[in-house]
């Protein structure tokens, strides 16, 4: 269905990324994104950057790295030390942080890169621990020991405000328009450009509100989009001009009606979110206005988002480069890669250096966001979490990193304020059941009809006792029952046993037993649930989910899309029960 719009061609991935970016840009303006949730989003964003950087090492080059937190920490400590001792503005420490983290990665990994996978894995763990212990012991007297460092500076952006940015933007926009409309003739180019320019500058100049040129930029983007859409539908030149003029006119009217108040809103919003400093004379005759971040997480959200965009663009470019393809060869078959003339050790070293340097950037962002850093934020568990983000999501896959972060960082943070007594009595059990059954159906797609009957039976047995008895706590028993039933049924199918009679019988026994003992059992469960502290079990639940996910989807939730004919012996594994024919992706 969604291919109908693109004449049968698959939707290019940049469209998905653009939609995702739009959603991400709009997200903090929704009502439910209060300060704490925005903070979680910023934290998750930093982990997305970390995951993407680790993905270069683990996903592309196929190396083990369980000490990534150390490089993250190196970046954070570099930023904090420079900011505290030398007063350097924190974002300016990024180059040095990259150098420190990347340089450390080269030093550590160069001697051990020729080791086999599991040896490399343990060496990276060892380095991570050495880093943590060194920091705890206040090495060189600058890391603050186990208490960490306080008072890292917040980011400060120097913006050439307001001119000449709007002017440069207009020049670029007009150039784009002129190129797009080159087949329309000079007259149309000039007329359209003039309409845009007037509509662009009239409101801010006439109202005396330079900040409004920000809104004008949105108008120009919309107008360019309309013009190009009309062009793609083969509308004639006149129509195209009218389209541009309509957008410009609507905008102008809106600006003259609501512009003054809008300008006020923009300015108060800026003043709320930033400490706006006095303008400084910069180079080239520019006037620079410093925007210093405050505690409010929202500006950080956009800062981190910008870095995520940079990271993704950079990684996509890297993937298609000579180096990126060399990584894939090394991962798939090191010996063959070497035979093709790839310097495998150097290629792996570069993967380590780039991935770790970028983790250093994430460290700078982290230090500037939280202003307090302590060794425990960079321990082995954090490395494990980063590793899980990459592998759970699908190693080598960019969307996979995002999904992995949702699972490993966002979900646990949200679980933190969940009330266990409430969780079981609403729709959550149904969602969990749906997930279990979906996993079951996915895993046995070749026997879909039979698996669907099993699922229906399990669902009936799941809902019957709690609903008939009016005892929601019984859902807990139902979830355990569903898990056991699904695993048993899968094992039985693998041995060619006819599952249905057994499953039906067992479920009937389960339902009858619960109907008889249900009320008393529910009371007991309730007391257990009331004593159930989700924080205590969080890691355990996470671990169980990790095991389950890997069994159901060994290549990750969103596996890497493989280009070319790569024999998928490594990642896209055949089902255990049909473990013969290698699939050609």
């Amino acid at each position, binding site marked *: 269905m969604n291919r109908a719009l693109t004449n049968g061609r698959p939707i290019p991935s940049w469209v998905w990324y653009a939609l995702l970016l739009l959603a991400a840009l709009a997200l903090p303006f929704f009502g439910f994104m209060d300060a704490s949730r925005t903070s979680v989003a910023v934290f998750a964003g930093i982990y997305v950057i970390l995951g993407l950087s680790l993905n270069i090492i*683990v996903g592309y080059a196929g190396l*083990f790295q369980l000490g990534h937190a150390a490089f993250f920490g190196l970046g954070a400590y570099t930023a904090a030390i420079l900011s505290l001792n030398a007063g350097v503005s924190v974002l300016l420490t990024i180059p040095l942080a990259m150098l420190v983290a990347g340089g450390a990665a080269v030093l*550590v990994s160069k*001697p*051990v890169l*020729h*080791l*086999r*996978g*599991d*040896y490399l*894995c*343990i*060496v990276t*763990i*060892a*380095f991570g*621990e*050495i880093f943590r*212990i*060194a920091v*705890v*012991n206040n090495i060189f007297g600058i890391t603050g020991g186990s208490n960490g460092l306080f008072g890292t500076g917040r980011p400060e952006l120097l913006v050439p405000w307001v001119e000449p940015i709007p002017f440069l933007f207009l020049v670029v926009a007009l150039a784009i328009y002129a190129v797009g409309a080159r087949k329309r003739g000079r007259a149309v180019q000039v007329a359209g450009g003039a309409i845009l320019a007037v509509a662009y500058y009239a409101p801010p100049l006439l109202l005396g509100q330079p900040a409004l040129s920000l809104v004008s930029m949105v108008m120009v983007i919309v107008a360019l989009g309309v013009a190009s859409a009309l062009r793609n539908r083969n509308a004639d030149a006149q129509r195209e001009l009218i389209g541009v003029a309509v957008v410009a006119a609507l905008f102008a009217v809106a600006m003259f009606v609501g512009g003054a108040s809008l300008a006020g809103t923009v300015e108060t919003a800026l003043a709320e979110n930033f400490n706006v400093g006095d303008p400084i004379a910069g180079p080239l005759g520019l006037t620079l206005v410093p925007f210093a971040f405050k505690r409010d997480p929202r500006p950080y959200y956009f800062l981190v988002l910008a870095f995520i965009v940079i990271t993704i663009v950079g990684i996509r470019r890297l993937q298609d480069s000579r180096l990126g393809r060399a990584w894939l060869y090394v991962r798939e078959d090191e*010996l063959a890669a070497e035979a093709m003339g790839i310097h495998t050790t150097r290629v792996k070293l570069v993967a380590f250096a780039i991935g770790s340097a970028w983790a250093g950037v994430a460290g700078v962002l982290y230090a500037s966001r939280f202003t307090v850093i302590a060794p425990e934020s960079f321990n*082995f568990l954090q490395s*494990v979490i980063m*590793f*899980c983000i990459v*592998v*759970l999501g699908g*190693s080598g896959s960019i969307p996979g990193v995002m999904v992995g972060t949702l699972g490993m960082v966002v979900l646990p943070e949200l679980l933190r304020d969940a009330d266990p007594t409430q969780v079981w009595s609403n729709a959550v059990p149904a969602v969990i059941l749906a997930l279990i059954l979906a996993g079951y159906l996915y895993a046995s797609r070749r026997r879909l009809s039979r698996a669907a009957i099993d699922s229906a039976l399990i669902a009936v047995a799941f809902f019957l006792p709690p609903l008939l008895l009016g005892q929601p706590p019984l859902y807990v028993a139902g979830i355990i029952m569903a898990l056991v039933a699904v695993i048993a049924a899968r094992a039985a199918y693998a041995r060619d046993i006819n599952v249905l009679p057994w499953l039906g019988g067992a479920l009937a026994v389960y339902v009858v037993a619960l109907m008889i003992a249900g009320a008393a059992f529910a009371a007991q469960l309730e007391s257990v649930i009331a004593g159930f502290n989700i924080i*205590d*079990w*969080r*890691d*355990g*639940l*996470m*671990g*169980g*989910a*990790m*095991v389950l*996910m*890997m*069994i159901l989807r*060994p*290549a990750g939730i969103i596996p890497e899309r493989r280009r070319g004919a790569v024999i998928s*012996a*490594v*990642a896209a*594994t*055949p089902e*255990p029960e049909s*473990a013969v024919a290698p699939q050609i992706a």
Partner: protein
Amino acid sequence: MGFIGLMGMTIERVAYRPLRTAGRLSPVISALGAAFVLEALARNVSSARWQTYPEGLLRGLPSVQVAEGVALSGLQIIVLVVCAAVMVGLYLFVQRTRVGTAMRAVSLDHNVSRLMGINVNQIITLVFFIGPALGGLAGVLVGVYYGSFNFTLGWTFGLKAFIAAILGGIGNIPGAVLGGFVLGITETMATAYGGAGASAWKDAIAYVLLIVILIARPTGLLGETVAEKV
């Protein structure tokens, strides 16, 4: 021990076997997940606080004067004897029995072992019984010797066990013993003679040692140079 062995078998069945053909990354995640589950179980079934070991008959044992100024407590002797017995027993089991031979064959090549009539799954299950059972024994010894324990104890010990095995060369029981000795003695010596503050660096010394040895001898101290699978 038996209980822990059974637990090891269960974990192998649930978390590892479905992934045996699934490349290198997935089993690592699965193993870490299983470790998280076990830790959460330990934390919630017993408690999150440090606990003291029941002081039984072992505490009251007399100590033995070995040499001038060197005394071994009865407890230390028991620990040493148990360790030695386990090492020798394991070595003989792996080197001399049919099952042990099968085990070594499986570690070299699953498919060829299967062709030779070895039940690979059974052997792996057995290994996952013996390994965790010995780990459990070590845990008991640690508890008896140091007198207190906590649910997070496992991470450091697990990591050090891994380091000791790698130091000596994987797949080599004398090597693992040697690795353990080297690690333990270096740590203790460094703490004793390294001057003030050295004990805080104890763990770091172990890791530095590991990296140095791996750079010098990539397959461990006693590692055989196994031809890489091509």
